[in-house]
C-alpha cells in the first residue's frame, strides 16, 4: 500500500515536473534575450515594473496580464517587437528591435510572451 502510494506520487511528480522542465528548456534562449533587451523596462517579474519604469510617462506593458495579452494577436506582438511601439500605434518608448534581434529570435520571443502571460494556445 505504502509502496504503491509512493509509486503513484513519484509518477505524479514526474508528470507534473516534466512539462515545466520542457517549458524551461524551450524558452532558455528567449529568457536570455528578454533579460538582455526587455527587462530594463518590462521588469524582472515581466509585469511592466522594470527599473526604468519609475520615471517613464507610459508604463511598459505588463506581460503577465493574461487578459490584455490574450486579446493581442501574435502578429501584433511581433510587429511591436520588430517595429517598436509606433508600428502598432503605441508609445515610441518601446523601441524597434529589427536589426538587433533576428526574425527567428523575435518569433521565439512571441512564444515566450505567450508562456509568460499564460496565453499559449
Amino acid at each position, binding site marked *: 500500500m505504502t509502496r504503491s502510494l509512493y509509486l503513484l506520487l513519484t509518477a505524479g511528480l514526474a508528470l507534473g515536473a516534466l512539462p515545466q522542465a520542457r517549458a524551461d528548456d524551450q524558452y532558455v534562449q528567449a529568457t536570455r534575450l528578454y533579460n538582455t533587451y526587455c527587462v530594463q523596462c518590462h521588469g524582472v517579474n515581466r509585469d511592466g515594473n522594470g527599473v526604468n519604469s519609475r520615471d*517613464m510617462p507610459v508604463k511598459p506593458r505588463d506581460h503577465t496580464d493574461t487578459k490584455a495579452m490574450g486579446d493581442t494577436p501574435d502578429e501584433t506582438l511581433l510587429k511591436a517587437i520588430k517595429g517598436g511601439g509606433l508600428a502598432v500605434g503605441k508609445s515610441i*518608448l518601446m*523601441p524597434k528591435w529589427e536589426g538587433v534581434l533576428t526574425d527567428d529570435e523575435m518569433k521565439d520571443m512571441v512564444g515566450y510572451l505567450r508562456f509568460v502571460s499564460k496565453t499559449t494556445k
Partner: protein
Amino acid sequence: MKRPMFPRLLPSVLIPAAFATLAMSSGHVQARTGQEVLQQQCVACHAVSKPQSLDLERLWQRKGPDLYYAGIKFNQPWLEKWLQNPTTIRPAGVMPARSVRAAADKTPDTIDPSALAPHLALGKDEAAAVSAELMKLGPDLGLVEKGAFRNDPPNVSMASMLFSKLRGCASCHSAKPGNGGSSGPEMYDGGARLQPDYVVAYLRDPQKFDPHVWMPRLDLNDADVQKLAGYITTLKGEAK
C-alpha cells in the same frame, strides 16, 4: 540620485597599494607607464583590444565597458580626471540584468548595490599616462567618421524635448541627476565625457560598435542625430 557606498575594497585596489608600499620601501618610487597599468589592471575587466568574438555571451561575461575604442569615444581631460576620482556612470552596471531585482508590491525593480563593483582610482601621474594610452585605441577601426558632428547652433529646448520625450532617450539615460532611466549610462556629463563625433556615430548605429548591444537602433534622421548630439555636448554637469 544617491550613490551607494562600497565599504569593501577589491583586491585590484589593494594590490597596487601593496606594490606602492614595496616600491617605496626599496627606494624606487616609480609610476608605472600607461601601457603597464593597462596590461596589469584595466584588462581584468575591460577589453583593450577588439575581442575575437562579439557575441551575446561575451556581453554577459564582461565586467566593464569596452575600451578598445576609447580613443574615439572619450575626451582625454575627462578621462584623466575621472580615473583619479571615479564616479558612477552606469547606475545599473555594465549588464543591468545582473543587478536589477524585483521589488515587492508591484513597484519598480531596484538596483542591488552588492552586484556592482567600484572602480579603482589612480594617482595623478598614472591617470595621465593611462589616459594618453587609451587615446591611442580605436582610430584604426573605422567606427567614427571625423567631422560627422556638424556643431550646428544648438536649440537646447527642442533637443531636450527630443531627448526626454520624442525619442525616448530618457527612458534609459538620465540627463539630470535623479531623473530618468537608470539602465543606460548617465548623460548629464555626457558632453564632458564623450567626443561629439562618437555620439553621432553611436546614435546612428549602436550595433556597429557591438552587434548585440541593447541600445536600440532608432533610425533617427540626420537632423535629429545632430540635435541630440549637440544637446549631449551641452551636458557637462559635474558627475556628483
